[in-house]
């Protein structure tokens, strides 16, 4: 029962060779759709991470066979630690200097410039170093993982692994997660030194402080809990960066353009996730220490 106009139109579209998709999705409320989509995304993200941890469990506890390749873990630790060192040195060293310069003016005005080492130390260890390590990792490791996994998705490499019963979560994701879990605290710890070192350079060169005294004061201001909180933050941020990058890369569709989009999304989302996690962790440990 098609009116002639409809038939004519239909015929003129014949060459497209494609029936237009049903429009059900559009009629649905936009906000409900978005909420549901983001919940599904969080679910998918959690599933991948869960699978990776499954593969890290002792083989006897698992029904699926296969080990996480050790050589790949070593590769990833190297990539996330030695690989980020130059960038990390510049970023944290400079931020330590900036922080010391900014504080110096105010502290001199108040006549308490001797507090500079403790303030720089606490700010670095509890906040700045882990946060900056997270940001450096999301730009460095996150972007490269998303594009690397994204191009594997596009070229069917991920499916090729599956076709040989090599689960990508075991062979590719688990080594990256373990790699970052090992590298992130090391890198964050180095970040403490680099940031505090930046402050020290300014204090000595511009404020004429004694470096030995600077170090003594820094150490006196910091306790173990500060250091542990800083390392924990670095660890959480690193895991967020890698898992989000994996998630974005492994769901790429649409060729090279999709890979580019995934890379951007991975960096943006991991920076947001890092800051949200930072707020949460800082809040949780607010009363401690």
């Amino acid at each position, binding site marked *: 029962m*098609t009116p002639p106009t409809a*038939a004519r139109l239909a015929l003129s579209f*014949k060459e497209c060779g494609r*029936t237009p998709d049903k429009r059900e999705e559009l009629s649905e409320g936009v906000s409900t759709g978005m909420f549901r989509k983001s919940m599904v995304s969080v679910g998918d993200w959690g599933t991948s991470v869960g699978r990776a941890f499954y593969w890290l469990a002792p083989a006897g506890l698992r029904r699926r066979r296969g080990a996480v390749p050790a050589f790949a873990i070593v590769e990833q630790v190297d990539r996330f630690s030695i690989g980020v060192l130059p960038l990390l040195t510049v970023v944290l060293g400079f931020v330590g200097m900036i922080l010391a310069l900014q504080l110096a003016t105010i502290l001199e005005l108040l006549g308490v410039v001797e507090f500079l080492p403790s303030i720089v130390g606490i700010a670095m260890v509890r906040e700045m170093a882990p946060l900056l390590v997270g940001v450096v990792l999301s730009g460095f490791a996150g972007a490269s993982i998303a594009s690397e996994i994204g191009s594997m998705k596009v070229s069917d*490499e991920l499916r*090729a692994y599956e*076709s*040989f*019963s090599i689960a990508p979560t075991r062979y590719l994701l688990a080594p990256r997660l373990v790699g970052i879990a090992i590298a992130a605290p090391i890198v964050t710890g180095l970040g403490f030194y680099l940031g505090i070192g930046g402050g020290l350079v300014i204090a000595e060169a511009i404020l004429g402080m004694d470096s030995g005294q600077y170090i003594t004061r820094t150490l006196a201001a910091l306790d173990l809990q500060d250091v542990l909180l800083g390392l924990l933050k670095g660890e959480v941020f690193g895991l967020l960066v890698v898992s989000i990058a994996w998630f974005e890369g492994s769901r790429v569709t649409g060729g090279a353009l999709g890979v580019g989009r995934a890379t951007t999304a991975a960096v943006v989302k991991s920076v947001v996730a890092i800051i949200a996690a930072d707020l949460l962790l800082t809040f949780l440990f607010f009363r401690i220490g």
Partner: protein
Amino acid sequence: MVTPRSSLLSESDPTPVVGEPVVEVRELEVSFGGRRVLRGLDLEVRRGETLVVLGGSGSGKSTLLNALTGSVTPSRGTIRVLGSSVAELDLARLDAHRVKVGFLFQNGALFQSMSVRENLACVLREHTALTAEEIDILVKMKLELVGLRHAVDLMPAELSGGMRKRVALARALVLDPPLMLYDEPGAGLDPVSLAGVDRIIATLGRILGMTSIVVTHHIESALRLADRLVFLHEGTVVASGSPEEFRTHGDPRLRQFLDGAAEGPLNDRSGREDYATSLLGKERLR
């Protein structure tokens, strides 16, 4: 020009013994987001047989292969492959199942970060207890089979399209799977490379008695490879038969496909109600 099958191999080749069913698909339905891609598909492939699947783009050929490996879950119907009911396998059993089914991806899907040697070796290391030396020998043997032993130390990016496809074929064969699935093995190949790949597929089927399902758009290559062909349209098998039967088949849709005609029953969608309604909206048509 259709090359008769005998020209691919010498006359003395043994004829394969066609045995028990290796693949049995009954009333298979697969949907993506409410859209039915396969709609009640039936298929049977016997041991040693080479089945060619023809069909237009989007007719569900890849989906069918993915259902056989357990990568997509059917909404209805049964799939038995090599004696197991694929849709009912848990992940651990699916792992074991996939090892027995070789899959040649359309663009090869080689592991880009690994050399040709590693592409094959990592699969062997994963699934066998062979020593490094034995693995190396096996890798070279499989590469020899596809005529690429000299490329063993190259990276995938250094290979031509045809070479990549052949390396991928060697890799798919590295575990000696009893069943091989080929998704458009000829796509993007020049005629010579295509003939080379076809000859390997034919060799595997004829001489080694491997069971194969080949999805292809190349009519010539389909007719010379196949023991039997099926033609897929809108998610079901609309024609099936031997190459001889296909050449003279009466189905107008198959005829259009084989003749490569631009106009015909395959692209006439104006009669479908959902097309007109989705184009103009239901209200307007009332």
